[in-house]
């Protein structure tokens, strides 16, 4: 079985985001970057498949030089190969990213392509579905359970009020959701072994950008809280305000 995991490097969930001077990008100078948490689930699932089926796990990522640190962390978890599609900055338009990834994925003949269901920076959740179109491979999205027997793939996904069980044949694209697994830590031996793996670099000409960021703004400041009163006497007034002004209870 040949497995690929497409990953993205994103700002740490706890990073304080500053908007850049152009008002169209974020200031990266003081940001700590991490592997997208949903992609960690994809890496973990790939490693479980690797352990069961003796396969290679190739990490593929598109982005500037800084992203190799997150690719290393996926290698340190246990992935065996890595391909870095080198570009100056991460595209805004998911079509560009997916087209470039598709080009590299085609060359690899993968049976299973895993991705996080979305990246936590732009929250587009587009790459998996677009890849499905471009590669003409079925995609099962937002999976919480996976079982592969022979070439039959059975995956579960959470849907409103229940669980949906789906079946497809290899090759398949799978996007991962929390609950699927508990990503392992990179062991120190894994980290040292990953150091010896050469990350393959690829240069690809990107397709045209069709989405432009016009402006980025901070969310509006929360208005100051209001103290209604003190003690039990204040409760009726608080309830009235929650009903009539805030409209959070009825």
């Amino acid at each position, binding site marked *: 079985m040949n497995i690929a995991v497409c990953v993205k490097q994103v700002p740490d969930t*706890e990073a304080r985001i500053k908007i850049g001077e152009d008002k169209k990008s974020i200031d990266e100078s003081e940001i700590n970057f991490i592997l997208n948490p949903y992609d960690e689930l994809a890496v973990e699932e790939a490693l479980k498949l690797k352990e069961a089926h003796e396969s290679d796990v190739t990490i593929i990522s598109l982005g500037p030089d800084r992203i190799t640190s997150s690719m*290393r962390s996926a290698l340190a978890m246990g992935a065996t190969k890595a391909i870095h599609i080198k570009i100056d900055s991460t595209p805004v338009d998911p079509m560009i990213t997916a087209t470039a990834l598709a080009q590299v994925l085609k060359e690899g003949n993968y049976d299973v392509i895993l991705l996080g269901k979305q990246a936590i920076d732009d929250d587009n959740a587009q790459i998996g579905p677009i890849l499905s179109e471009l590669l003409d491979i079925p995609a099962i999205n937002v999976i919480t359970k996976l079982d592969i027997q022979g070439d039959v793939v059975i995956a579960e996904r959470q849907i409103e009020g229940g669980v949906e069980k789906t079946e497809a044949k290899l090759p398949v694209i799978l996007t991962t959701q929390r609950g699927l697994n508990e990503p392992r830590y*990179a062991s120190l031996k*894994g*980290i040292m072994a990953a*150091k010896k793996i050469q990350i393959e670099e690829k240069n690809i000409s990107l397709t045209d950008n069709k989405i432009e960021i016009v402006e980025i703004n901070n969310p509006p400041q929360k208005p100051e809280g209001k103290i209604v009163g003190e003690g039990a006497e204040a409760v009726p007034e608080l309830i009235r305000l929650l009903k009539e002004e805030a409209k959070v209870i009825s």
Partner: protein
Amino acid sequence: MFESLDYYRLDDVLSEEEKLVRTTSRQFTEDRVMPIIREYHRKAEFPSELITEMGKLGLLGSTLPEKFGCADMNYTSYGLMLQELERGDSAIRSFASVQSSLVMYPIYKFGSEEQKEKWLPQLATGNKVGCFGLTEPDFGSNPGGMRTTAQKTANGFILNGVKMWITNGTIADIAIIWAKYENKIQGFIVEKGTKGFKTNIIEGKFSLRASNTAEIVLEECEIPQENILPITDGLKSPLKCLTQARFGIAWGAIGAAMACYNESLNYAKTRIQFDKPIASFQLVQEKLVYMVTEITKAQLIALQIAKLQDDNKIKHTHISLAKRNNVSIALKIARLARGILGANGISDEYNTIRHMLNLETVITYEGTHDIHTLVIGEDITGISAFN
């Protein structure tokens, strides 16, 4: 996750794998140590369930070669790992230090090939635990005077004596025991269960409570010939192990200091007195600035000793300076942080008091603060103040 203080952008000099080692160690501390440490500290017990997990992650003997199941990483990585462990609790770092620097290291350095092959892989996974017995009831700073003896028999050696304050003492499967043999200090491996080998837990500790500390009594304890560490060379040998361990302490203490700084900074920003956050008072700010300054200096010292260690240029006095400085500022920071937390600072609802109490051990063991003063004093003046 915990963000460590990095006022001088020292992360910029760390390599990718060094940062990954820190991340793994930090996650381990965050997910596995923090949720249980208060409870273990209260009941004065070491969380033994963490041992094989530490082994699995490669946190034990991590600078030793791969062929023994170790990670073969550099000293900056090793230091960062211990910093993260001690950010959790000095007891966790002490466990890793003893297992790595005081048990695996002497077997690796002074042991025979058979001893290395037999013990190192099992110690690396944590399936076996070790301890290091140098200190005695009457010989602490002056271990050269020790009374424990080894006598040759037909098939091996007989050990007699008492070792005191031994970390991991009652949970260890093997003890590295230092004893006088033909008037020279010599290392031996003693296995748990050997006749005449007894351990007694030391109770009533107010410091390093989550660590296992014991007395070891050796009474006509007979061990086979193959248990002598053949390459030991007098007092120098255990001191070499201690130099390794002190390197880790110099890094670990920064972790404890960072934990206290973070906790007191957050507290100072949210605790309101006289209608203002206490962080707005100059006296409080001065304390926080002291902490940031001293942690930054300690980080620079730690990074440099790691570099010297990796480049094979280190002297034991370099490490004495680092241990002496970094532990001493960590203890001062812990005390200041405790003060900032007010009454909350004496409760184990917060981590600071635990670190403050732990650091009283850390400033004492592996050479007291004052002993390191004398070591450096002798180095720079050429005059020994010990005798």
